[in-house]
């Protein structure tokens, strides 16, 4: 039956033509088409990856920003605290210094008062001594003005002195 017996002519035409077509298509169609599809797929994949990366980067950046902000905030707090501390320490130092100075001045004043007092007392003592001597001189002078009195005194003095 002709239906199931291949015609030699058609086999030859088919073989030659199909092989030529296969060659042409392989070289000029399948290669660029497959390359085009592959390139596009990889470019899409790359783009997706890049987008993913960019997303991660943005997240990183955001975190970084937040961190910087937090740092800045902490820094500010630190600075304020330090300033406050500094102020406080300065005030207390000044206070202390003033206190010490005052103390010192007070001590010096006290000392000088003491000295003055001592000087005054000494002076007073001297004056009292002088005065006493003067008074004694005058009293003596008056007491020994008469002969009797001088003899009486000598007599008293002699009474006191006991000769043994």
């Amino acid at each position, binding site marked *: 039956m*002709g239906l199931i017996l291949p*015609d030699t002519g*058609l086999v*030859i*035409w088919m073989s030659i*033509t199909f092989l030529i077509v296969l060659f042409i298509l392989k070289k000029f169609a399948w290669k660029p088409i497959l390359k*085009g599809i592959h390139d596009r797929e990889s470019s899409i994949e790359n783009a997706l990856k890049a987008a993913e990366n960019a997303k991660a980067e943005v997240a990183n950046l955001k975190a970084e920003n937040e961190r910087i902000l937090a740092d800045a905030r902490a820094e500010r707090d630190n600075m304020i605290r330090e300033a406050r501390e500094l102020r406080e320490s300065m005030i207390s130092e000044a206070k202390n210094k003033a206190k010490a100075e005052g103390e010192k001045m007070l001590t010096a004043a006290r000392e000088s008062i003491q000295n003055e007092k001592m000087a005054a007392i000494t002076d007073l003592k001297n004056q009292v001594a002088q005065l006493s001597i003067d008074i004694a001189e005058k009293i003596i002078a008056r007491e020994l003005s008469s002969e009797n009195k001088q003899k009486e005194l000598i007599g008293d003095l002699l009474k006191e002195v006991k000769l043994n």
Partner: protein
Amino acid sequence: MNYKAFRTQLLVLAGFLLFSTYAFAYDPDAVAANMSSTTSQSTQTSAAASGDEKFNPGEMIMHHIADAHDWHIYGHIHMPLPVILKTDKGFEFFSSGNFRNHDTHAEQPYKGTHYTYALHHGKIVVWDEVMHKENEEATHHLLDLSITKNVITLFILVGLMLGIFLTVAKAYKKREGQAPKGIQSFVEPLIVFIRDDVAKTSIGPKYQKFMPYLLSVFFFIFFSNLLGLIPFFPGGANFTGNIAVAMVLAVLTFIITVINGNGHYWRHLFAMPGVPVGVLLILTPIEIMGLFLRPFVLMIRLFANISAGHIIALAFYSLIFLFANGGESAGAGYGVSVLSIAFTVFMMFMELLVAFLQAYVFTLLSAIYFGSAVEEHHHEEHADHAHAH
């Protein structure tokens, strides 16, 4: 190429594909001409036109699915095709129109340079004018290289494929990295489908080497199947349903498989590792038989499926004329035609599916054979794994 224009053409093509068949079926002139041409051809060599024009569906169908030396266009209009013959005395070139009488449209022998030739059941034979019968001795030395209906279909197909795919290739170069457009977006899903679901899964990492063949075969079969569904001039030929065409494709698959077969493939074919010698004596012949059986089955499947589609469509139409009984009961013919057309519409849809399916199956099986040929051995690895565990 204008993409929009092409798309419109495709749509028109699909429309014709579905509707023109009925138009032809309803045209009594065309059918009558068909009948007369078929019968005249079949009776010419035997009973020399006894006047008995009984419709023979078997002969009509066989005539339609077989290759032909001219292309029946419409009614008595036949497109003559070039005949190229290699005889033992040299080449012969003439038009197949010479086999047909200009006035009577009946077939007649033609006297060439070396011999006289005649058509016998669609085949060219050397005609002995004196004895009025075929010269079988000379016919035996005849090599028919004619541009037949199927060769023309082959050329149309090649033109179609080159046109489409070179255009698409250009589009890929021009629109690099951009989304597919027009005809590009029609073929790209198919190409990606063949690459991802056929080649990659069946062949494995070495699939790239086989892609050009697989793609060419797929689109070649797919387009020719579709072309075969068109019932008039550029289509209608039972091209992929021709055993010669199916054979060439199957043999190519076989050759590529054998060329690419690695040591592992041949070892498994001739001496399956781990199988006792006694079993090998039975297994190896079966394996070797299988080696040749595979392309054979590939050929038969394609040939039978596509031919069957054509036979069924033609058989349903034949029913109309069998019921009409040569015009005696035209009413029955018209009645049955409704049923026939309904069935043929259904079959056409089936054939659209089959057109794709057969192209897919042929490509898939080819890919599986290539995959088995280039497969690296896993058994030793498995053994190693087993030891390791």
